């Protein structure tokens, strides 16, 4: 398969706000269930082990006309809850049997209740992750929390989830993460070969496809892209930070690159790489999933950082590991977690003399010219700075 064929398919999946592929998956066998989850992270292994398809609901995107959603949210709340409600009231999510609302912010938390009130026939659960990272405290709480999640999925699907089912699904997701990380590494090594809009679409496909299919797709993509002739440009290299929940329009990602910045790392879709190591398949699978979150998960603003010295250092590490020269902060307007975290991150970057710029977006931002100009000026200043 060529790069174009793969990315065309991803684009179709990305633009399809009716989730046709997930509907087809569901209809292919009687009794199949689909479980949606909001950003940032839920342990998809568990949904998969229950024989269900986990799909990421990342808002309505740039083209969805929000007619009803605005009646549910004030103007000073970000856009993702209103476009998600829009998807719900226009029956675009009517095939979804369960919705999970992970511990992200007050908006997502309250959206779990909005869903319970608006769609009482759908299983809707707030999904908590621990803010205490001791195995005997936060780990124990999380393990029981995971057990409760399994019980509700068992009830939903009329199935029993065994430890072997869980181990099998852990393996499937270990493999998926391995390839996600390979794609990210490949982009760090050869960003001119892997435009970020392509990588983004490839990762978005993983939010609606079964993980096995997505893994294959990433393998095909890496094989195809290696043979693609693409010219290296004199771009600077940046890490993009702050877009972990509401997603920017694809046009914004393209604009940043067109303005002369290769995005070599980002936090667009964290669910697929939140866990940074393989989860062990030996012993108690729930304990392994819980421990992986406690000790080997990526930092993000909704997760407490217990050590003041460590706060925000991860971002400087990402910059180093990806050979980036600067950071672009791109947060959704009214996104409290991202925007409150930013000043703390600025200080880390200031200390380490890493240049940065910041702007805000909404998933339906149309005007890209200002962003292109800002990113262009940033790229120029980085080049000047490194030449000096």
């Amino acid at each position: 398969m060529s790069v174009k064929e793969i990315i065309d398919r991803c684009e179709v999946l990305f633009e399809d706000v009716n989730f046709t592929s997930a509907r087809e998956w569901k209809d292919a066998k009687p009794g199949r269930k689909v479980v949606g989850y909001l950003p940032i992270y839920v342990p998809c292994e568990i949904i998969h082990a229950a024989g269900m398809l986990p799909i990421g609901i990342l808002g309505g995107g740039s083209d969805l006309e929000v007619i009803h959603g605005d009646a549910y949210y004030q103007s000073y709340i970000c856009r993702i809850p209103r476009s998600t409600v829009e998807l719900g009231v226009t029956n675009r999510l009517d095939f979804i049997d369960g919705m999970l609302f992970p511990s992200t912010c007050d908006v997502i938390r309250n959206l779990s209740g909005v869903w319970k009130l608006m769609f009482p026939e759908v299983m809707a659960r707030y999904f908590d992750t621990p803010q205490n990272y001791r195995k005997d405290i936060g780990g124990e709480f999380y393990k029981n929390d995971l057990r409760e999640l399994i019980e509700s999925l068992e009830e939903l699907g009329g199935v029993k989830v065994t430890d072997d089912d869980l181990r099998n699904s852990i393996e499937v997701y270990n493999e998926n993460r391995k390839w996600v990380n390979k794609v990210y590494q490949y982009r760090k090594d050869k960003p001119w070969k892997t435009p970020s809009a392509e990588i983004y679409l490839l990762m978005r496909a993983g939010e609606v496809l079964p993980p096995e299919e997505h893994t294959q797709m990433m393998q095909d993509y890496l094989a195809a892209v290696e043979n693609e002739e693409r010219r290296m440009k004199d771009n600077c290299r940046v890490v993009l930070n702050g877009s972990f929940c509401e997603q920017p329009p694809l046009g914004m990602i393209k604009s940043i690159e067109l303005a002369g910045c290769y995005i070599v790392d980002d936090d667009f879709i964290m669910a697929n790489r939140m866990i940074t190591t393989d989860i062990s398949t030996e012993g108690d699978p729930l304990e392994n999933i819980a421990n992986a979150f406690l000790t080997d998960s990526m930092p993000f603003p909704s997760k407490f950082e217990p050590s003041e010295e460590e706060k925000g250092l991860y971002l400087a590490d990402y910059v180093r590991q990806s050979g980036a020269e600067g950071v672009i902060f791109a947060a959704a307007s009214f996104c409290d977690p991202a925007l409150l975290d930013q000043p703390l991150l600025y200080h880390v970057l200031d200390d380490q003399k890493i240049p940065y710029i910041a702007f805000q977006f909404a998933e339906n931002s149309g005007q890209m010219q200002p962003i292109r100009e800002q990113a262009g000026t940033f790229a120029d200043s980085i080049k000047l700075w490194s030449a000096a």
Partner: protein
Amino acid sequence: MCADVTTDVIKDASMLKQKEMIASNYDKITSAPETGVKVSSTFVPGNLNELTMCFDIANNLPEINALSNAMRKKTGAMISDAEKMGHSEDVCTYVKADLGMMAKGNIAPNGKPMPNPDMLLLSYTGCYTFLKWFELLREQYKCPTVMLHVPYEGEGKITKNMRDYVVKQLKEEVIPTMEQVSGVKFDIDRLREYMKDSAKAEDDLVWVLQSAKNVRSPIDAYFGAVYYIGPIFSAFRGTKDAVEYYSLLRSEIEERLAKGLGPVTPEGEMGEEKYRLVVEGPPNWTNFREFWKMFHEDGAVVVASSYSKVGGVYDYDGFRHDPQNPLESLAEYCMGCYTNRNLPDRTTMMADLVEEYQADGLLINSIKSCNSFAAGELLMLREVEARTGKPGAFIETDLVDPRYFSPANVKNRLESYFQMIEQKRQGGAQAA
């Protein structure tokens, strides 16, 4: 929730007592460098006042400082300083008011500088912003910061797992840190004693809040409740002072009730009670008196509010601190605070209050800063209207940012709402 509201409003004995209590707490905090008292900063919802007292640690509440500064018209400049330091216009203004206050020398309401806290107690109840707020403060103060993760009541209940998790954190994280900071050994019997006093004060507070069920309510359960909840939601729950304050308050309200009097307002005794409202959402602090006046001058009294439950829901389902099971009870207290309850439960609570307090409807004061309250309120309004058959209304202001209080808009909305209630009554009368 501060002396500023109260001093020029009511001169009852309870009021003077509260003023004294608040002043003495600020003095205790600002004199810490001389006395050696240790100071902890913490949040109102789910605060652990009885526990903090077991270690002789003074309690400083940045939310209260922010609202107190707002009432003295100081937050506009503080917020603008924080924005100049790189904080976004879009985020919670309590945080920015606090950071701006630090930038302006961190002067307490008594005019003396606030000492740096010895500890940040991040009781993370009902709001994600708390987490960011204390990460920002920790960066400045570099002091021990203890996180108490209080799970959200997403499924509308407290499970054993949730309770055990909070209790374990108390035992193994919070208490050891407090011991270390204060040098005082934890004594669970001391905690029990404080909790006995908490429960006594809570009983009297509940009596006061429920006095609004009387038609011709003797209190305003939103604007007036701001000072009723002051001591128990802040540094005094568990103290003898609080017991005394609530007993005094109760007897004063009993007297008002016996005399058939309505609430007292900053402009004196309130006239005829024309409208009875339930209010969801915190008040605006920058224009508090002006805001209140828009209600009382039209004869609108608030008979129940969600704001009077942010630091503990005592009246709705009967929670009391339980000295027999101190740590479990603290855990349940933290989890049961209003904004830690899910939206369906909050909605049911508001609908029930409209019915139980014979209100004309639900008014929502939606706060720009506060997603914890605001996200989902429009749906809540529709639901409560549908369930009770009573009209609702929606206004938008902010807590401490004067840029978001538009008096003309708020006044217009309120007046149309009162007209709507009148029409509904006339319609009802005609139909009958």
